[in-house]
């Protein structure tokens, strides 16, 4: 009973991914972004082995030191090693970025798939719901939910996960609207498959490419939003080494020790940029029509 899918995976799916990877590899900017992200993930995983100090450990007598061999990123006003904090901060940012993007993708896929597949009243209701949430400025919503849920990493993940699915739902809905009219869906219906099976086993894999591209860019957006919420004082609490929080803590020392602000700020910027470049590269690689 399962031979049509096996055929699909052997003859269509693998060559697509292989040729996409070939196209992606030719894109220098995207490869640079990917290399940076791989390095960042490795650094985050190996944080205890590549840093000499703990992220919250104060070093006696070393306050506000500029970058040096002993402290490549300098030290902050209570003598913590900024390099350690930035490396451990990558763990915080990546955890929040991936976890809340997963939440957004799950919600966006479900709502988008249901709206696009069933159409009619269900579709109208779901699209009106996204309109309502789009009308609320996301930053007000995020600050409000963060205030309800309390200041912690988990509540930030929930906040950003619950506010990030709107665009995804629209993209998935658009794909489902056009895909459900194709012959292979009709064939699946004729074979008596359940609607859930048709939606998630037959249509979803073909609607996956824009979702992959959008989610990659979304991770960068989430990291940017997390930094903004930390900066506004509704993100993770001190002494968590969150990059946005470090920028916020460093702003008072801008005149004397600009590195306290510029280094974590640069880390946010590079990470977001890398996700955007990889997202752009994936879009070009997965959509051969453009080339």
């Amino acid at each position, binding site marked *: 009973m399962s031979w049509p899918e096996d055929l699909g995976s052997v003859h269509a799916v693998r060559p697509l991914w292989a040729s996409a990877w070939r196209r992606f590899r030719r894109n220098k900017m995207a490869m640079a972004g990917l290399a940076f992200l791989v390095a960042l993930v490795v650094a985050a995983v190996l944080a205890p082995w590549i840093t000499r100090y703990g992220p919250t450990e104060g070093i006696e007598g070393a306050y506000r030191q500029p970058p040096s061999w002993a402290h490549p990123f300098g030290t902050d006003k209570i003598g913590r090693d900024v390099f350690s904090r930035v490396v451990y901060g990558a763990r915080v940012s990546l955890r929040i970025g991936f976890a809340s993007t997963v939440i957004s993708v799950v919600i966006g896929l479900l709502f988008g798939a249901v709206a696009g597949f069933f159409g009619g009243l269900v579709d109208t209701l779901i699209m009106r719901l996204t309109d309502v949430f789009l009308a609320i400025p996301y930053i*007000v919503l995020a600050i409000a939910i963060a205030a309800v849920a309390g200041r912690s990493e988990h509540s930030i993940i929930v906040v950003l996960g619950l506010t990030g699915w709107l665009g995804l739902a629209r993209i998935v809905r658009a794909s489902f609207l056009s895909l459900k009219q194709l012959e292979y869906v009709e064939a699946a219906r004729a074979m008596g498959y359940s609607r859930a099976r048709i939606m998630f086993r037959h249509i979803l894999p073909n609607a996956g490419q824009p979702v992959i591209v959008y989610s990659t860019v979304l991770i960068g957006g989430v990291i*940017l939003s997390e930094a*903004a919420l930390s900066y506004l004082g509704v993100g993770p609490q001190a002494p968590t080494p969150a990059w946005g929080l470090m920028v916020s803590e460093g702003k008072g020392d801008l005149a004397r020790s600009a590195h306290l602000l510029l280094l974590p700020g640069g880390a946010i910027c590079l990470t977001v940029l890398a996700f955007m470049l990889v997202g752009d590269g994936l879009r070009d690689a997965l959509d051969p029509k453009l080339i």
Partner: protein
Amino acid sequence: MFRYIVRRILLIIPTIFLALSFLFALFFVLPGDPATLMAGGANRIVDPGVVERINERYGLDDPLLVQFGDYWKRTLQWDLGESFQNRRSVNDILGDKAVNSVRLAIWATLIEVVFGISIGLLSAMRRYSISDKLTTVVTAVASAVPVFVLGFLLQYAFAVQPHKHGWPDWMRLRTQGIGPNTWTLFFIPTGQTWRYLVLPAVVLAAGSTALAARMTRGSMLEVLGADYMRTARAKGLDGHQAVWHHGLRNAMLPVVTLIGIDFGLVIGAAVLTEKTFSWPGLGSEIADSVISRDLPVTMGLTLVVVLAFTVVNLVVDVSYAWLDPRIRLGQDRNS
């Protein structure tokens, strides 16, 4: 066309109602008792009698549905209530802060339109030149840098450094507040006010300028390759005439949509910009009021932002439908 506009307006009324009702319910479950806050703050011991009188005055002990009904009754009469913190009327706060935000937004929009579109056009017409590549890199970085990091970077370059090196005073920009706050014709700064305006306006504009440049470049490249452009050249127009008379109008269509899509982003950027430069506008006031749980201020100011957002989107959609008949006809068929 008329039917399309009427239907769009009827659709945004429930959207606004549901959005604000959702926020109201959300703030209702916020921890932290507003009466205690007003009576002296969460960390001090307050007289229970005072708390009771405050609860009575603002109806804070009423059930959710009663408060909800009162809220809508007042709001429909454009009475936005008074601040829990300093008892100022929210209508007054709104009047004060909104003008400052609008002035900042006007300048940011001017920067976005002038620089974003012209940079995008130049890039598209000299594709793969050094300046085009530079534009691609700069716009990518500008969309990735957090608003507040860019703000501090510019403060460092244009205020801290000049101060350190003793530059003459007329070369220094200001980084905090709005200064003497004097204007002519509503939006042209006079006296020293411009020194306070330059940095926040540039920072607020940065993200959307980069986006506008990218969009303009992309859509202009698409237009330049279209058949009707070849026709325009074939009938004897030179390159510039073809671009100006035939290309530009079509290339601008997607950029118009950007204004609507972009608005939510601009509001987020405005909150961060105003906080970073202590600009006394709506954005920083909303953020402060949410954090200090000043419910009437948050709800009143958010109402205005939600209204502005839906109206901007309405105008964009309607003008788009007017420019492109396929949209309104397609909508008519669906309903």
